[in-house]
C-alpha cells in the first residue's frame, strides 16, 4: 500500500491509500489557481526532464500531461511513435534505455499492453513512471481527476471548497458506472479511486462486458439499469468501442443503446442533481445521447479541464519528491 506518491511512480490506483489519493486531490486544488492566472507557470520542476512516451494514439491525455509538465517548468521530451524506432522493431526495453540515456527524471507512458508501466518501472528503477494508460489495466490520473471533479462540483454546490470538503464528501456517495467495464482501464481506476475514498460503487453492463469474477470487486452489480439511474448520485459512462458491438460482445451498437445507453427517455427519469460523467472520447448516440451531454447535469468539460491540475499535482509530487516544497 502506497501512502503517498511523493518520490514514487504512479502505476495503479489499486495500491494507493486514501490519504495518498487525497494528497493528490488537495495538491491539485492549488494548481487550479495557477491555471487561472495570466502567466500559467510555476517553477516547481525547473530543470527536471519529463519524457512523454505515447505508444498508443491519444490526443487529450498527451496534451493534458505535456501542458501540465510545461506549466511546472519541466523540460518535455516527447517521443512520437510514428517517427520512432519502435516501428523498426526496437523493443520497449531498448527504447526506454535510449530515452533514459538522455537523462530524464520521469516518464509518462501510454501503452496498449496491460502492465507496460510496471515493466518500464523495473527497467529504469531510478526514473519515476507515470502510467498514462496501460492496456485494459489502469489509467490512474483519469481516476484521480474524476474523483477531483466530483468533489469540486459537489463542494461548489454546497457553497464550500474541495479542500474543505476533504474526503468526507465521498463517504456513502452513490456512484454508478455503466458500460464496457470489462475492457476499460478507466473503469478499473475509477472503481479503485471511488471505493478507496469511501463511495458506494455499483456497476451496470451487459453480461459480456462485466469483468471476470466481478463479484470479488469492491462493487455491486446491478441488472436493473433504470432503477440504478434513479439510485445514483453520479453516473459514470464509458466509451463503447465499435468492435465490441459488432456481434463480439453485444449484438450491435444499437442494441447496446437499447439496453444501456443513457437516452433522453432514461435521462428524464433521473434526479436533476445527478451528475453525468464521461472520460471521452464520446460516442454520441451510442452510450449517451447528445442532448444529455449538453445538459447541465453533464460535467464532461470540467473533467477535461481538471486533467491539467491533477497531472501537475501527480508530476509535482512524484518528481519533486519528498522533503521539498
Amino acid at each position, binding site marked *: 500500500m502506497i501512502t503517498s506518491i511523493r518520490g514514487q511512480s504512479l502505476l495503479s490506483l*489499486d495500491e494507493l491509500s486514501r490519504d495518498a489519493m487525497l494528497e493528490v486531490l488537495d495538491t491539485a486544488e492549488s494548481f487550479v489557481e495557477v491555471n487561472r492566472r495570466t502567466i500559467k507557470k510555476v517553477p516547481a520542476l525547473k530543470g527536471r526532464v519529463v519524457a512523454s512516451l505515447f505508444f498508443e494514439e491519444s490526443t487529450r491525455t498527451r496534451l493534458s500531461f505535456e501542458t501540465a509538465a510545461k506549466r511546472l517548468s519541466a523540460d518535455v521530451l516527447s517521443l512520437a511513435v510514428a517517427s520512432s524506432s519502435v516501428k523498426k522493431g526496437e*523493443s*520497449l*526495453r531498448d527504447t526506454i534505455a535510449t530515452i533514459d540515456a538522455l537523462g530524464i527524471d520521469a516518464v509518462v507512458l501510454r*501503452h496498449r*499492453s*496491460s*502492465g*507496460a508501466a*510496471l*515493466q518500464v518501472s523495473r527497467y529504469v528503477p531510478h526514473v519515476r513512471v507515470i502510467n498514462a494508460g*496501460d*492496456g*485494459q*489495466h*489502469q489509467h490512474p490520473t483519469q481516476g484521480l481527476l474524476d474523483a477531483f471533479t466530483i468533489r469540486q462540483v459537489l463542494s461548489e454546490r454546497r457553497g464550500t471548497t474541495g479542500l474543505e470538503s476533504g474526503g468526507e464528501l465521498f463517504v456513502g456517495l452513490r456512484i454508478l458506472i455503466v458500460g464496457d467495464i*470489462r475492457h476499460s*482501464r478507466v473503469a*478499473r481506476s475509477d472503481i479503485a479511486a471511488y471505493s478507496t475514498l469511501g463511495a458506494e460503487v455499483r456497476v451496470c453492463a451487459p453480461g459480456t462486458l462485466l*469483468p*471476470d*469474477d*466481478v463479484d*470479488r*470487486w469492491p462493487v455491486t452489480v446491478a441488472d436493473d439499469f433504470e432503477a440504478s439511474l434513479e439510485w445514483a448520485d453520479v453516473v459514470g459512462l464509458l466509451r463503447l468501442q465499435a468492435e465490441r458491438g459488432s456481434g463480439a460482445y453485444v449484438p450491435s451498437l444499437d442494441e447496446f443503446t437499447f439496453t444501456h445507453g443513457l437516452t433522453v427517455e432514461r435521462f428524464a427519469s433521473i434526479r436533476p442533481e445527478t451528475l453525468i460523467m464521461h472520460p471521452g472520447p464520446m460516442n454520441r448516440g451510442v452510450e449517451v445521447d447528445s442532448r444529455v451531454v449538453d445538459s447541465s447535469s453533464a460535467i464532461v468539460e470540467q473533467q477535461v479541464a481538471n486533467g491539467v491540475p491533477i497531472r501537475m499535482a501527480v508530476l509535482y509530487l512524484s518528481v519533486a519528491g519528498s522533503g521539498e516544497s
Partner: protein
Amino acid sequence: MDIVLRQGLIVGPTSSSIGDVLVVGGTIAEVGPSVDAPSGVHEVDARDCWIGPGFVDLHTHLREPGREAAETIESGARAGALGGYCALVAMPNTEPCLDNVATVSYVLARGATTPLDICVAGAITQGRRGDALAPMAEMAALGVRLFSDDGIGVQDPAVMRRALLYANPLGVRLAQHCEDEQLAGGGTMNEGEVSGRLGLAGRPALAEELMVMRDIELVRATGAAMHFLHLSTARSVAMVVAARAEGLRVTFEVAPHHFTLDERSCEGYDPAFKVHPPLRTGEDVAALVAALRRGDVDAVATDHAPHAPELKDLPFDEAPAGMLGLEHAASLTYEALGGAQCDPTLFFQVLSRGPAAIAQLRRHDAPLRHSAHGGSILAGEDANLVIFSPGTRWTVDRTALASRSMNTPYDGRALAGRVRATIAKGRLVVDQGVLT
C-alpha cells in the same frame, strides 16, 4: 570408464535399501550392500543420496531445428543431464515441424551425438495445422512412440477421432494439449479475479476442461490410448483419474510450474510467468499437489520451453508462452512430495518409471536406438541412473543454467534437493552437481 556408487539408498519400484551399484560398460554389473569394485573404477560417494533410474521427460522443447538461439539439442541435453534426466522426448513444434521422416531423423541423429537418449514426439497432423494426418506409421518405424500437436490442441473432434483410430493399431500414443482455442485464444493468463484486475485477457479453466472431457469420450469411443499433457486444473485431473479408474487407456502428466506457482505470480506482469495452459488458482495448485502425494499422477513432465531473452522480455500480452523446466523439476517435485517426508519410491515413479512406461522406454518395449529407462536397479539393466541428494539446498540463478535461455520463473528461489550425479547410457555425465 567404469563407476561404482557407494552407500546410497537404492530405490526400487517397491522397496529401497542402502548399498553399492557397480556400472561396467554401460550396464549395471552388480548391486549389493557392499560391492567389490575393480581397481581404477570411478567412485561416487552416494551417502545420504538416493540412487534411482534416470529421469525421463515426456515434454521438452529443444527448439532445434529452427530456433537455435533459444536452445539446441546439445544445450537442452546438457540442461537435462544436470536435472537428472537420461531421456528427453522432444516436442515437434520446431521450424520446420517434426511431422515427417526427414525432420524426425535429423533430430534423432543430432540427439545421438549427446550423452542422453533423445526421443521424438511426432506431430499428429501435418504442420500441426490440425487437419490432415501426419505420416505416423513412417515416423513410428523410426521409433517414435508419442505423437502430439503440442502448443495447440487438435481442435477438430473429427480429426482427433480419426487420429486415434489411425494411431491405435500402430501401437503408439497420442498426447493432447488440452485447450479449446475458441475459448482460450487471445488469453494470456488464467481467467478470473486476477486477470480481471490486471486487465489481461483470460484463458479459462473451462477451455482445458471441455477438451479433457471431449477427449476422454473420444478415447472411450475409439478404444485408443491417450496421454494428457500438462493438466493444470483440479477438475481436469479428477476427470482423467476417474476415466483411468474406469479402465480407459488414459494417462496424464503435470508440470512443476502448475503445482508450485499460482495465477498471482502474474501480478508483476513478468513474462517469465506466462505459460499455456496458464498458472491457475491456489486451489488448483493444492489439488495437483494432493494428486501427486496420493500417487494419482502418472508423470511429472517439464514442458521445458526456452525462449531467447529478446523474444521473451516483452509486454506480457506480446511475449510468447513457456518457461524453462529441466534443471529444477526434480527439486520442485521433491518439495511438492513433502521435502523431508518425500517418499523416494513415489519420487522416482513420477519422474522416471511412470514417464518411461508412457514413452515405451522400458526394457521390454524400448524402441530401436534407445537404451532402456525407468527400470529396476538390478544387474543387467542399462545404466541410466541418477544420484539425488535430498539434503542439498541450492538457489536458482538464471544466468548459471546450462540452457541457452534464461526464462525461468524460479530465479533467486531457494530449492531443496539436488541432482548430484547423472549416469546416462553408462557414462558419468554429471558429477558433484556439474557436467563432467
